[in-house]
């Protein structure tokens, strides 16, 4: 049971320096009330990832998404701009779009056929003034459009701020945009057939925590360790925004035609690759020849869907027939790594039912990216 007084004391211990801190209390991983608290203070009050621009690639494409029970709709408008609205009709609150598709010229409510333009404006209210009378003084189209949700896109990841109170998107994303300035504005090409999802029995935070530290790599990922040793990694920490790890020995697989690199990258990226958890719920990997994004959808305190999508540097690399084998192999390699992590995050989830577990102690040297995340979350909830 989440008791707010106790939680405040426990969160104070989380924000101590890493060598003295405790991890987040177990109730934050097991209690439905904790997820409800996070729904407001983390996923509504801040920026959160809800999907990818490639979910709605063409004008008129729409994709319904659910953010902790909040029905939202991604819409690609006629100009190519991606917009996000609440996925409900302004008339009776009916869900407008039940599945990903192209809606054509307007978004039509399946209930009474009120229609909205791709930019959210109310376009038609059939029979609103009686049979065959399609206007009425009481319904002003300019005041009755779809409810817009603040949104922004970075490297094809779509973020929303439900409350409307977070800093503006450009300010929020600036630290990662700056760190990855070599990649941030490059065209990215989504590999349509390479995505996969993992339905994992753990709290969403455990996926973030596991992703952003390299400490576990030699024990959990022996395949990675064969070429990328623990000492080849470095921490990435930007308090309040993201944390993760980098490697200095990235080498693309040598089992076919190499994927093309991003053109004219600085030399440092020849061997360097970075893996960043952008708080709260997206994990990104960047390499000289491809990128992946893992969107976390927290379905319950102990259930998270990890959706993985991969991007390449050219349309041919992403979807061309000549590189099908290489794409399949690359997706399989990453899937093997992420599947290897499942027993760990599910084990930590079960561990949080131990009555005596106090949040745990960190390695002051190896766990600081995880502590960086805990510190951020504790301050958001505190």
């Amino acid at each position, binding site marked *: 049971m989440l008791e707010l007084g106790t939680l405040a004391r426990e969160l104070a211990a989380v924000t101590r320096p890493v060598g003295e801190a405790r991890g987040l209390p177990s109730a934050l991983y097991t209690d439905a009330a904790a997820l409800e608290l996070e729904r407001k203070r983390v996923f509504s009050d801040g920026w959160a990832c809800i999907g990818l621009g490639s979910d709605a690639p063409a004008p008129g494409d729409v994709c319904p998404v659910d953010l902790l029970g909040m029905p939202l709709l991604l819409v690609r408008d006629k100009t190519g701009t991606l917009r996000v609205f609440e996925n409900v009709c302004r008339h009776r609150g009916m869900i407008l779009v039940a599945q990903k598709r192209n809606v054509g010229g307007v978004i039509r409510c399946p209930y009474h056929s009120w*229609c909205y333009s791709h930019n959210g404006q109310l376009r038609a209210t059939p*029979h609103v003034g009686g049979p*065959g009378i399609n206007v009425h003084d009481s319904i002003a189209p300019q005041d009755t459009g779809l409810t817009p949700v603040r949104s922004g896109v970075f490297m094809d990841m779509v973020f929303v701020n439900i409350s409307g109170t977070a800093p503006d998107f450009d300010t929020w994303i600036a630290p990662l945009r700056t760190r990855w300035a070599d990649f941030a504005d490059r065209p990215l090409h989504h590999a349509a057939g390479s995505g996969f999802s993992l339905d994992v029995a753990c709290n969403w935070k455990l996926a973030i925590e596991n992703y952003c530290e390299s400490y576990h790599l030699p024990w959990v990922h022996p395949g990675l360790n064969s070429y990328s040793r623990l000492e080849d990694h470095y921490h990435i920490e930007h308090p309040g925004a993201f944390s993760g790890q980098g490697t200095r020995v990235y080498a693309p697989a040598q089992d076919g035609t190499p994927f093309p690199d991003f053109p004219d990258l600085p030399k440092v990226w020849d061997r360097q690759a970075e893996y960043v958890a952008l708080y709260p719920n997206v994990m990104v990997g960047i390499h000289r020849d491809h990128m992946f994004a893992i969107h976390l959808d927290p379905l319950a305190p102990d259930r998270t869907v990890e959706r993985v999508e991969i991007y390449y540097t050219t349309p041919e690399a992403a979807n061309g027939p000549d590189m099908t084998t290489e794409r399949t192999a690359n997706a399989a390699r990453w899937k093997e790594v992420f599947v290897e992590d499942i027993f760990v995050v599910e084990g930590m989830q079960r561990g949080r039912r131990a009555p005596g577990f106090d949040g745990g102690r960190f390695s002051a040297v190896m766990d600081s990216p995880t502590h960086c995340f805990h510190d951020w979350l504790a301050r958001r909830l505190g």
Partner: protein
Amino acid sequence: MTGSHADLAEAASLDAELRRLHGSGDARALTTLHLQAAALMPAPGARRFHLTHAWVYALVAGDSERVDHLERELRAAGGL
């Protein structure tokens, strides 16, 4: 309805086709059928009803030419 046997038969045929296409997502075909149904309706209310449905499906189809035409028709008929 005019009441002629031919019109009644055509209306019944249109009705059957509209039911068949209901939920099909074929907005262009539904526009066409409602336009045909509107042409059969001598009563202004019944005509406006079908023009309204033709208009909605033309909007869904993104058929701007028909949308413009139907909005003119509906305005003239007092439906917009």
